[in-house]
Structures are given as C-alpha cells and as structure tokens.
C-alpha cells in the first residue's frame, strides 16, 4: 500500500530543519520525501500545511499491567499514546509484580499487542526492584528488554549496583537510573525552600538529585556501562552531567515535560495532581532544564506518564500518590516551549523522538528515507482547553486540567497505518 502525504511542513530532527514538502510511504516505511510528485495509484492525504514529524518515542511510561489494570491497561495507554502522537511507548517495569523475569516480560509483551502503537519494555535491574540481587539481564534482553531500571526505587547499596552495572556492561545492556539520594528524599512531598516552608510540607533539596547522579556517574566511570538518567530536573545536577559527557562516559539524560513546563508554586493550595517524583522545582531550575534541552545537554523529553486513581489523589498532600498522566498532553505541553520561543520544533522532536530512539537502538525517530513510517501530523497553533475527562487514559490525573493549551494532533501513523483518529469499529 502506498500513502502520499502532501503539502506538509516537514519537521526533521536530524538536520534540525522544517521545510514544506510531501512524503511518500510504502510498506510501512518512508521511501521518499521533499519536493516529490504523487505517484500513480497512491492514496493521497492533504496535510494542509500542518506539521509532520516523526512519532514521539516516550521513554519511561508506567502502564498498570500486571497488577494495576484499574489505573491503566495496554489498550488504554496505547489509545492515549496514539491520541498524543506517541508512536513508541517505552514501558517501565514498576508494575505489581515488577517485570523482572523473562516470563513476566513475555506476559507484558503479549498483553501489549492490544495497543495500537509500538510498545517496547524495560525490565527491572534488580529482582523485585528491591536493590539486592540483579535480574536475569541476559534472558530479559533475549525476551526483548530494551533497558534496565528499578524506576524510582533507588538502592543505597553501591556494591549491588556496581555488580549489576558491570554485568550489564558485559552484555551491552543500557541502565536507566533515577538520580536521587534516598536518605535525603525520604518522606519529601515537595522541593525544599520558601514554598515548602509556606505550606508546611516536608521538602527535599535538589542536591539529593545531584548526589544521586554523582554516585551513579562514578559507578558508570568504574564499570563503563551505558547509562541514562531518567530525569534531571535541577540546575545543581547539570555541571555533573556536563563533566561526565565531556569525559566521554556513555551517558545521556532525560527530563519530564512537567518539570519543563511547571514549577513548585503550581502546587498552590495542596493540589495533589501536581505531586511528582522528583517534586516540581523552582522556576530557576525549570529554566535551567529548558536551556539544557536546547543545548543538547539533556537529551530526552519524556512524559513520565504515571497513572493514579482518583482515590489515591483525594488524600492530604503528603499521603497522596505521586505522578501524573502525560501521554496525551506531552505534545501540547512541549509546544508551550515552542510558543515561548525556547525551543524550535526540530529541537523538540530531537528530544522527544530522535534521541530516545537512537539511545535505545531503535530505527524510529527520524524523518528520512528508509525510516519506519511512524509519524504525527499536528497543528501547533490549534487552541483548546483541556478537560481531563476527555483523556483516553483510564486515569485522569493530569496537572493540565482546565488549562489553555495550543497544539492538536490531527493524525498519528504507525508503520504507515493511521492509528489516530481512532478507527472505531
């Protein structure tokens, strides 16, 4: 089947360009793009001058299977992803139980077939994510794990980590760390400082992130493992990251869209939908993180999609669950940075599609001949007010409820097949 997308604004995150043009898809791949003519017999879609970019590769999505399907299933997460222009979901292993054996990974892989987008899985680095014994990294890789992480469960046992890192390095596996010093962050609900003191909430210094990062980077230097920091959210961590990269360590870093577009004061009067891990930071930290993405020091923007049910959020702030859904709001939230002039569209898609795909060794994330035809067509200027109950996610815990946003997904394609708008049968 041949599909011809004409009259688009092509967003190329590799060459950092945006140019008007057409794009031709055959057998699930991009076969030509640019100033090309429509071939005989092709199905034609007119893009009306809107933006066509590689589909988003979202590194670090929590899906509630197994164990918490009332929060999110592969089917609902997949539909949310398609609606948000996310064509590849990299699922986190912090499920109940954790994805820490080839058998549980096979279960998740089988269940993931219900999703209309691509799902790839990360597996736990240690059994039960409890930081004591490493998982069967080799078997898990054979079963399809693209990276290894204990998510937000951070072990203080450097010995265990150094062994796991060493073993992972030998197999060429990538480790995703959560830079945080758990002693400092224990019990914290917000970032320490004026706001925490004002609200009387237990706070954690952003230094806890830097200490965690420095520890992990020292272990990377010691073992040579491929390492990605899931979220770097504070200015204090950035010099350490820059030093590690300059020293040639195989290190990358991500940041959640919430830390790029919200700050600690958004919590306001104890609004639990703004409770995140790590907590939202100061405005200075937010601006530093945005600049680091623009400079390429922070490589990846992700949604850190973390579904939470209503009950777990309808509690006093300290007791409430942490995290927010983000698959559907990642793109419009990221476009705030574009409209604010902080990042260009190609820069955004470099961080949301190209870099995460490259880092995980996936062919996605590029707008080029031969690349998989995973695409998102969107209007960056279309305004709307978000109503959380219109989200496709089973959980509706978004911090953007009721806020004005700009940028709507018009269509999403996976391997050349349109998956959004949803084809309801």
């Amino acid at each position, binding site marked *: 089947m041949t599909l011809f997308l004409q009259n688009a604004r092509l967003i190329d995150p590799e060459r950092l360009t945006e140019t008007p043009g057409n794009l031709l898809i055959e057998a699930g791949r991009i076969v030509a793009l640019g100033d090309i003519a429509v071939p005989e017999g092709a199905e034609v879609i007119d893009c009306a001058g809107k933006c066509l970019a590689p589909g988003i590769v979202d590194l670090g999505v929590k899906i509630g299977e197994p164990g918490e399907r009332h929060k999110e299933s592969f089917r609902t997460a997949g539909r949310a992803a398609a609606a948000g222009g996310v064509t590849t979901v990299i699922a986190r292993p912090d499920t109940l139980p954790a994805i820490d054996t080839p058998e549980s990974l096979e279960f998740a892989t089988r269940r993931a077939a219900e999703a209309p987008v691509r799902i790839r899985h990360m597996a736990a680095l240690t059994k039960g994510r409890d930081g004591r014994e490493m998982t069967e990294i080799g078997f898990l890789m054979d079963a399809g794990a693209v990276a290894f992480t204990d998510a937000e469960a951070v072990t203080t046992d450097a010995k265990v980590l150094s062994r796991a890192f060493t073993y992972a390095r030998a197999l060429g596996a990538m480790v995703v760390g959560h830079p945080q010093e758990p002693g400092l962050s224990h*019990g914290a609900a917000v970032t*320490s*400082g*004026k*706001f*925490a*003191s*004002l*609200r*009387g*909430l*237990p*706070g954690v*210094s952003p230094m806890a992130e830097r200490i965690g990062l420095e520890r992990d980077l020292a272990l990377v230097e010691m073992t040579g493992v491929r390492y990605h920091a899931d979220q770097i959210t504070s200015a204090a961590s950035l010099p350490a990251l820059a030093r590690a990269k300059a020293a040639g360590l195989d290190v990358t870093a991500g940041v959640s869209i919430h830390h790029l577009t919200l700050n600690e004061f958004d919590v306001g*009067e*104890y609004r639990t939908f703004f409770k995140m891990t790590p907590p939202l930071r100061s405005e200075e930290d937010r601006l530093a993180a945005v600049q680091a993405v623009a400079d390429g020091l922070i490589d990846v923007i992700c949604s850190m999609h973390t579904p939470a049910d209503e*009950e777990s959020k*309808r*509690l*006093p*702030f*300290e*007791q409430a669950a942490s995290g927010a859904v983000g698959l559907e709001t990642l793109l419009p939230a990221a476009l705030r940075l574009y409209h604010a002039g902080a990042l260009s569209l190609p820069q955004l898609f470099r961080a949301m599609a190209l870099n995460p795909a490259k880092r995980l060794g996936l062919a996605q994330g590029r707008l080029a001949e031969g690349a998989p035809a995973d695409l998102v067509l969107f209007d960056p200027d279309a305004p709307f007010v978000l109503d959380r109950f219109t989200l496709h996610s089973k959980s509706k815990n978004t911090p953007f409820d009721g806020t004005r946003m700009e940028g709507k997904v018009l269509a999403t394609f996976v391997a050349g097949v349109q998956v959004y708008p949803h084809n309801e049968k």
Partner: protein
Amino acid sequence: MSFRARHLLGIEHLAPEEIRTVLDLADRYVELNRRTVKRTDVLAGMTQINMFFENSTRTQSSFELAGKRLGADVMNMSMQTSSVKKGETLIDTALTLNAMHPDLLVVRHASSGAVELLSQKVNCAVINAGDGKHEHPTQALLDALTIRRSKGRIEGLTVAICGDVSHSRVARSNLFLLGKMKNRIRLIGPPTLMPSGISEFGCEVFENMREGLEGADVVMMLRLQKERMDGGFIPSEREYFFRYGLDAEKLACAKPDAIVMHPGPMNRGVEIDGTIADDITRSVIQDQVEMGVAVRMAVMDLLAQNLRAERGRAAVGDVYV
C-alpha cells in the same frame, strides 16, 4: 463588620482589618468570660463538632468551652478511636459528618493541607485547629490578643520567635499575622530546626539567641516538638537548653519590659526555665490560655454570622426560584 471569610483555614489569606475585627470582638468576650454568668446564646441551636485527628487536650477544651459559652451544642469526636481506624478516608469522614448538618467544624489533623481538603467537601464553616506543620490560626490570634492587651498595640513591635520553627504551625501562623501587622520578626533557633527559605518571608534569622533577643518587646518560645522529631535535629536536650533555652540571663538581652509567651504545653528545663515561666511580671503564658477561649468565641461568632447570612441569601433565592 469586616470579616468575610467562610472558613478560618489560616492567617495567610486574612486581611489586617479582619484580624482587628476578631481581636476587637474577642476583647468583649474576655469581659464576658470574667463574669459569673458566662453564657450567651449567639450560637443557640447551632451544632459544633470538634474533630481532632491528633491528640490535644488544651486546644480541644478551649474550643469546647468557647462553643458552650456561646450556646452551641458541642460534640467531641475522638478520631483515634473512630472509623478512621477502620480505613475510612478523610473525605468520607467529612461527608458522613456533613450529612449530620453541623454548623461549625473544628478540625485538627497531622497532615498539612488536610483541613483545607476537608473544607472543600462540607457546607458548614470549618475552623483549622492545626494542620500538620502548616497553620494554627486561632493560636496566632490569641497570641496577638495577648500582645495587644499587654503592650497596648499589635503594630511596630519587635517579636522574637525562638526554638523549633521548622516543625511549628504556631510559628507559621504567627509569622503571617505579625508580618501583616507590620512588626519586626526575628526567628531564633539552631539551623537544623529552621525551615529552608524562611528568610524570604521578611524576617531576620538568628542562630545566636542573645543577639536575636536584643531589644525584643515580645519573646515567643516554641515547644520543642519531641514527638515530631525524626531524630537527630539537636545533639541533646541539655545542649539545646544551654544554647536556646530561655533563662534569666538570656532574657536580660531583651527589653526590660519584654513579655514571655509559650503556646504550651511547656517542657520546663528544655526550652524554658521554670522560674521564667512562673514569673508573673514577665510571663503572660496563663493570659494566653484565657485569651484562647475569647478568641475562639469571637471566631465562631463571626463565622456563624457569615453562615447565617449565606444561608439567608440562599433561602431568599429559593423563593424566587
């Protein structure tokens, strides 16, 4: 009258005029409370429920007495032994109580923001009797009344707040109130018990108690919240008393007529020397307890007036609909 609030959740959102309104009315209740017959009927027919999720004897009795003297039907719910233990959530507890049509709900809870959350779910007036490390507004109001009656004003004074500021909701509410009234505020304590970013609130922070007390009109001691300590904030109680306990020698750094306050219950020999606490020429600690009842009567009176006005408007609306 200038007191428009629906609930009293904190001092942060009160206007100086509203604070003065409470204090003026409380002055009148002080007089009433000193008579033999103390009963009025401004809350007659109304129901007040005290919900204390955290243990309290002093504050709860003060609220109970205030409600009874105003003629309300007062019920105390001990939340330690209630359905909360059976796993009921805060919101469900609130909705259950709300269905019994209370008019005033007095709530203490160990989590910051919990009283605010509860207030969103009920249609009576809610009074925060202390939420976590956030606010304890009636304590700040009773402190203000005590200061005003002792010093003749509640503006332009130098007030030193000493001790465990970090874990103290009393300190936060006082910080807001005294700041709104244009006083000079000094916070004194070891840096491990000082909340981060606190100097941005427009107060001076001192680690040396003698320097901090220099020229103070009011010395407000805080309880060393032993039950809230995760451990390791101070080396020992005796070192704390040596450096931050209020004794005659340190008090001599303050103005000769400086008054000494403490929200109670006191740890004698930890944050305050017993002889200072008992010195009736300096200590106004017993006055604070007396003012507490009057201030709580004033607050409940004002909230009840607003509640009646609101329900009156709703009833008139019904006629038209």
